[in-house]
């Protein structure tokens, strides 16, 4: 397998970052005493360990090629949808519709992405699945809270499956004068996830004014401004791996980080409504899969659309 030098730099950069984070985690564990800060550091180290795992899986999928990436995101969608539906009260009448959502609609969506058929994967869930779900539930014969139940399943499919599938769909874009869409995907994933990480770091170190106290008490104005600013800077510095010039890379990074922030905020509102802190316990320190990809869900379709509109 040949890996071009740019990809090698990107992977090397992530590896260096993970090593640095691990080192800092170790030092903080030694330095900080007191119960409260010990707890924060233990959570931080759990997060860093999970990052190693996630980066290894992601790198492996990218190296396997487009199919590996599609399968990885299909599994991600599956786990996210499972958490979303678990948190959403469903009735017995939804059982068959949910079976379709998990085992038929989800695989078809990723099959369409793998087939690179934009005409189909861009409308399959918003049109066909959207219409099918209420029909299937109506056939089950339970009309109690019908609109509410249907809407929740449709929402789950849109957020956890449709939006997430736009990430591997980046590989299908044909950008004139640019090859190696894996690097574009890498750029997107790095900016969206580092924006989360940087908002966390800025928030923990100098966050004071809560930005949405009723929805997400940990999000602060300082964390938002510092995190978005530094993530945009990082994205700009990665311009050489993308089809963008530095200014375009900055604008794209800003769009990704803002959408990511809105995604985190919206998915938090659902958690607050259901009275839970996390969507699950799948990823130690992070919570569930949905907690990790909430920002990606909102950023992926917008980033895809912007690139497709302006660069292909």
């Amino acid at each position, binding site marked *: 397998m040949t890996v071009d030098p740019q990809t090698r730099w990107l992977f090397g950069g992530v590896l260096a970052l993970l090593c640095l984070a691990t080192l800092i985690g170790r030092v903080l564990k030694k330095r900080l005493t007191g119960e409260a800060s010990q707890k924060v550091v233990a959570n931080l180290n759990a997060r860093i360990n999970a990052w190693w795992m996630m980066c290894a899986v992601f790198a492996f999928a990218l190296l396997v090629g487009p199919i590996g990436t599609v399968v990885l995101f299909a599994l991600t969608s599956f*786990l996210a949808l*499972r958490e979303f539906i678990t948190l959403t009260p469903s009735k*017995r009448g939804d059982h*068959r519709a949910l*079976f379709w959502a998990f085992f038929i609609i989800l695989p078809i969506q990723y099959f369409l992405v793998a087939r690179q058929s934009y005409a189909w994967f861009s409308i399959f869930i918003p049109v066909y699945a959207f219409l099918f779900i209420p029909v299937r539930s109506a056939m089950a014969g339970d009309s109690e809270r019908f609109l509410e139940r249907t809407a929740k399943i449709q929402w789950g499919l849109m957020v956890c499956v449709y939006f997430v599938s736009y990430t591997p769909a980046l590989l299908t874009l044909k950008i004139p004068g640019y090859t190696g869409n894996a690097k574009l995907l890498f750029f997107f994933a790095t900016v969206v996830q580092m924006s989360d990480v940087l908002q966390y770091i800025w928030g923990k170190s100098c966050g004071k004014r809560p930005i949405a106290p009723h929805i997400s008490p940990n999000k602060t104005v300082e964390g938002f401004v510092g995190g978005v600013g530094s993530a945009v800077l990082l994205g700009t510095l990665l311009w050489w791996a993308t089809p963008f010039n530095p200014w375009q890379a900055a604008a794209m990074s800003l769009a990704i980080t803002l959408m990511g922030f809105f995604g985190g905020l919206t998915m938090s509102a659902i958690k607050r409504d259901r009275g839970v802190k996390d969507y699950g316990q799948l990823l130690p320190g992070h919570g569930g899969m949905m907690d990790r990809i909430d920002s990606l869900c909102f950023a992926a379709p917008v980033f895809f659309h912007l690139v497709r509109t302006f660069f292909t």
Partner: protein
Amino acid sequence: MIGNAFALAARLFTGAQARWIGCAPEPRQRVFFANHTSNLDFVLLWAALPRTIRQKTRPVAAHDYWTKSRIRIALADKIFRAVLIERKRVTRGNNPLAPMLAALAHGESLIIFPEGGRSLTGELGAFKSGIFHLAKAQPATEFIPVFIDNLNRVLPKGEVLPIPIVCSVSFGAPMLLQPGEEKLAFLQRARDAVIALHAT
């Protein structure tokens, strides 16, 4: 081997997590009693136990259900090593307590569902008296309350195809029959112990 594969599949599908709240997974003789909402209940409870304990733990199941087809007989006998008891035509000759006591005498642990049947609503039904008679016959055995959360959504009564929903299996503090404790008091205490796990 096949049993372990079953257990792994059940855990992966439901993302089930064992929560040892009131006791630790120790290799000692126990009777696990749980709420019953789905045909998969005992599979998941069984799967949530560490392998060494699982090998010494047998689910108690309905004779009429598990002898209906060859596949069920093979599953009950070879994979889950179920203790099959009569629940429809109970006579002096097929006292359901006898096979359970025989298994316990062999040093094995049991999984029982004291409601006797699946609850449709997910609410915990009244306990039948079998668990009391078992406790009376085995006063030194620890009875562990277990709450299985969400499994009724994975496979509701009347459905054949399961859907993936995140489940959890919570193990409570061991309880013993108190000297002189009446039947109704014990059944109430046991039922309350399962309900209390729901809240945690």
